[in-house]
């Protein structure tokens, strides 16, 4: 029942929102709806009864596809992330004006429904369905409410991800016809006995789709543009949650279905990831726009996660699990500050900012904590994830870990540079009359700081949550 509710609540709430013409009503409604969803996702984390975590119904019988939903450890963690993100996003941007607010929040809720669906589907066609369902509202949100250059940027985003989707669809069909009972069920896919050549073929079809989504170098160029041009509320969901779809897909579909291909191609993927980590970190140093800096920083972080997945080590995989969650909340925290600055100062350019700490000390302190979480300082949540992921990568290959490790230095360079350029030094024209940010912004950031510190000091519950998934995935890989 729980996985059904996770999808159903945002869909229905979104539908209602389309009919709300009053801006305040739409905002209030989406806050309530997102809190209810958060409660359900929390219930899912603590639910012990297996029946409540599973749902199964007929959907497209002629096709061999069933409406099967399932919450395992990884799905619990990611639905919790999706559940937490939504109220954070909505409340922290509650002062922003969106024309046709009812439609905006309706689409946002649908986006959430699609994300939930992706994470709980135990049927590949259903997975594909939700994958697309999550993309469509995202397109409309970017093209309808985005910045000046939104049209070409959204188009690039669309073409890119659509291309990925098509490749994945071909891959899904390919697998479908290989199943003896012609079924899309995840269990049938997992039981497939593919020849090495078939595995390689399917691997690349799926991998490119997921690589675009994450994104992995060199498929990443849609991302900084899209993050820059989207309304920040949407950017938060895209970077906090949606990019996890790619990582999730790799762990859920590629590793168990194509284990031989993973073992065969892991070095190619890891080399791409390591190049991407350094490449994105270096480019981040040179950015003048906060949004683009955070975007490139995020590409570097995701690259490390992808590399850690393909190193196929238990510790690294566990690191990826906690880091998916941690990266989600941390990057949302960064975006909240970016949005607060953009709304109050009217600019995102470092060259037009400075000295804000004198005017907005509260925001400054919260942001500094976010920044140090972004560079994985110990006792922040990101340290746990990065420490374990680098460990996994080191066990795969020490040199790779060493080279990728250079990014922890570069991350300090661009992140502290960002803090300095926005908050330190003397005030400039844009910050002369600044005031500290709204209570709603500071409240959301304070909540995030608590999450960051608690998960940084005591990560054990989060690690245990995803133990089962890691174990079953790696058993598959290591039998090769």
């Amino acid at each position, binding site marked *: 029942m729980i996985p059904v509710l996770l999808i159903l609540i945002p869909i229905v709430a979104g539908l209602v929102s389309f009919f709300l013409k009053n801006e305040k009503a739409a905002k209030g409604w989406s806050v309530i709806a997102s809190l209810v969803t958060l409660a359900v996702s929390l219930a899912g984390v603590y639910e012990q009864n297996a029946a409540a975590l599973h749902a199964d119904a007929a959907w*497209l019988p*002629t096709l061999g596809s069933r409406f099967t939903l399932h919450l395992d450890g990884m799905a619990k963690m990611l639905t919790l992330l999706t559940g937490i993100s939504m109220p954070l996003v909505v409340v922290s941007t509650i002062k922003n004006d969106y024309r046709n607010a009812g439609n905006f929040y309706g689409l946002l809720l649908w986006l959430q429904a699609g994300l939930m669906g992706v994470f709980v589907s135990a049927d590949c066609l259903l997975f594909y369905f939700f994958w*697309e369902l999550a993309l*469509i509202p995202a397109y*409309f949100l970017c*093209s*309808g409410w985005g910045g000046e250059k939104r*049209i*070409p940027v*959204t*188009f*690039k985003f*669309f*073409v*890119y991800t659509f291309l990925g989707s098509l490749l994945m*669809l071909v891959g899904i069909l*390919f697998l479908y*016809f290989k199943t003896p009972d*012609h079924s899309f069920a995840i269990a049938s896919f997992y039981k497939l006995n593919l020849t090495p050549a*078939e595995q390689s073929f399917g691997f690349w079809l799926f991998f490119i789709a997921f690589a675009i989504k994450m994104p992995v170098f*060199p498929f*990443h*160029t849609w991302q900084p543009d899209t993050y820059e041009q989207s309304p920040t509320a949407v950017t938060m969901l895209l970077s906090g949650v949606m990019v996890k779809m790619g990582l999730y897909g790799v762990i859920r579909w590629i590793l168990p279905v194509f284990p031989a291909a993973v073992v065969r191609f892991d070095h190619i993927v890891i080399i791409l990831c390591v190049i991407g980590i350094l*490449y994105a970190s*270096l*480019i981040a*140093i*040179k950015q003048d726009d906060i949004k683009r800096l955070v975007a490139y920083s995020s590409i570097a972080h995701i690259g490390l996660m992808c590399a850690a997945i393909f190193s196929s080590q*238990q*510790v690294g995989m*566990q690191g990826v699990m906690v880091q998916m969650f941690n990266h989600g909340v941390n990057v949302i925290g960064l975006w909240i500050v970016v949005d607060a600055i953009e709304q109050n100062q009217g600019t995102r350019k470092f060259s037009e900012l400075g000295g804000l700490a004198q005017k907005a000390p509260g925001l400054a302190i919260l942001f500094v904590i976010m920044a140090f979480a972004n560079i994985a*300082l*110990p*006792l922040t949540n990101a340290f746990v994830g990065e*420490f*374990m992921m*680098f*460990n996994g990568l*080191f*066990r795969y290959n*020490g040199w790779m*870990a*060493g080279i990728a*490790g*250079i990014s*922890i*230095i570069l991350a*300090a*360079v661009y992140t*502290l540079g960002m803090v*300095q350029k926005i908050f*330190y*030094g*003397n005030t400039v024209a844009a910050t002369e009359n600044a005031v500290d940010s709204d209570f709603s912004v500071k409240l959301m950031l304070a909540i995030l700081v608590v999450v960051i510190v608690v998960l940084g000091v*005591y*990560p*054990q519950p989060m*690690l245990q949550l995803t*133990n089962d998934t*890691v174990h079953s995935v790696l058993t598959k890989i290591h039998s090769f």
Partner: protein
Amino acid sequence: MNNLVYLIPFFPLLGFLINGLFRKSLNKPLIGIIGSGSILASFVVSLLLFFQVKSNGALPVQPLFSFIDVESFKIAFAFQVDQLSSLFLLIITGIGFLIHLYSTSYMHDEPAEHFGRYFAYLNLFVFSMLLLVLGANYVIMFIGWEGVGLCSYLLIGFWFKNNNYNYAAKKAFVMNRIGDLGFLLAVFWILAKLGTVEYYEVFAQTAKLSNADIFGITILLFIGATGKSAQIPLYTWLPDAMAGPTPVSALIHAATMVTAGIYMIARSNILYTMAPVTQVIIAVIGLATAVFAATIALKQNDIKKVLAYSTVSQLGYMFLGLGVGAYTGAVFHVMTHAFFKALLFLGAGSVIHAMGGEQDIRKMGGLAKKMPQTNWTFLVACFAIAGVPPLSGFFSKDEILAAAFEKNSLLYYIGVAGALMTAFYMFRLYAMTFLGQFRGTHEQEHHLHESPAAMTIPLIVLAILAAVGGLIGIPEAILPNAHKLEAFLEPVFEQSTRYVHEAHTVSHSTELMLMGVVTVIIIGVIVAAWRKFSKYQYSDAEETGLGKVLENKWYVDEIYDAVIVNPLLKLAGFLKNVVEKSGIDGIVNGVGRFVGYSARQLRLLQSGQVGNYILFMVLSLVVLFLVFWNETIISEFLKKIF
């Protein structure tokens, strides 16, 4: 009794939270009491534990909770108090308390909010430093290690309106991060080979490590140490770190944080004893840093910069000690150096305070009359650091140099040359500051005063320690069985001692003779510097030749910029503007155009006909479904393809 261990980091953490969260509502005296009181409480507990350790030996490891625990990968949040950590606890909390006390007066002109922020940072620093030395494994050490780096960053940039200070803070953090990467990789290496990071377990299993493993691990850990403890090639952040308030320089950048690298290697002593090549590298780098930094200190005119280069140089001696296997000597020098260098910085702070912020010693002079307490305590520290017997620096430096002599007399002679420079630049500093004629403005002269008691009491206490602190380590050659510290620390280095089992090769008479000769020369240097610089007259004439090179710190910062920083930034710019924009994105956009839909799609979107979009989606789904109904046809088709 053992449970008290938790209290040691707990008090500073509590102080940090109270002062950090309520800094706007608390008044300054209360902030000062909370800030200093929390450290005093930790000091009392540390003292209790020290005596416990002294009589009963190391306390058992105290696990707090399981930090990371996934199947084969377990890291405990656990504390360990043994001889080495209990000594460091005393240094950190003892000197830490004195510096907190001093700060209540030094920082008094700050508004309450910033005063609270200062003490919150300072308490957080002590908390992190305590984690660093209390941790029972490398991961907890690393947590403290990066924690002190954070506090150092925050305190160097404490006056954040000044962008030069912010650059210094960022530089310190980034250079430390370079070292931290080495530390991290070493931890990964240990974990990959042994599956544990607990000290006890690692040191018990050294036999499982190949020589290559040990070499790699020790070198990587040492890279970490060069960052935190400011050794060649990563030392350049420390002189810039003087941008922070002076008590911060005393606590973090002289007495405690920068000695973390020495603690780390002393803690891992068995690994280093088993890695002779690494030891040679450490000895050479340590000695090179000691001499190199001393040459720069000869020509600096900023009172804090002289002390900063002196710190780099003294840290170099400690690494020399570690490199030649004199672990006790290195730790001994950490202790005595903490006394006299903290004293020197606090004394410098007292001077800067009295001079209204002036740091240029060319514009000082004759302060002895106006600031008697500061004067005599500073003088004691100068004698101690110069190595004049029987003050503390003499014993610890001598122990390191004697061990170096045993390894290779060349190390010894170069080390002595550095010690002579130390005596020279310290007494140049002393004489230009306290002797001769006052060279500042009339306004400054009128304002000159001795600092209040909250500042002079720490000076006096430290002066006593700097004077007599060396007596716990009197060498065999002078008095048999009087090296209390060696006996105390013996269990920590026992494994290394057994591994090496070398007899002393240098006779006591030779050692005494060398000691005597060096002492006489040092006193000669002191007299020369004293006479030369007490007659110093102000001049801003530019240095020439070697003097200019030294004044400009051998142009190392400029060289790093030209060789590393700028090329890297150029590369980043090239990647951003050329590779990313024209290369990768160019190809993507080209492909996009090639697909040919772009023009039409753009028009559809721009005209707001989003319906077409959905139509497209729905149509594709319909096609998909039709395809499925004709499954057989398609499967035949697909079979042909695949």
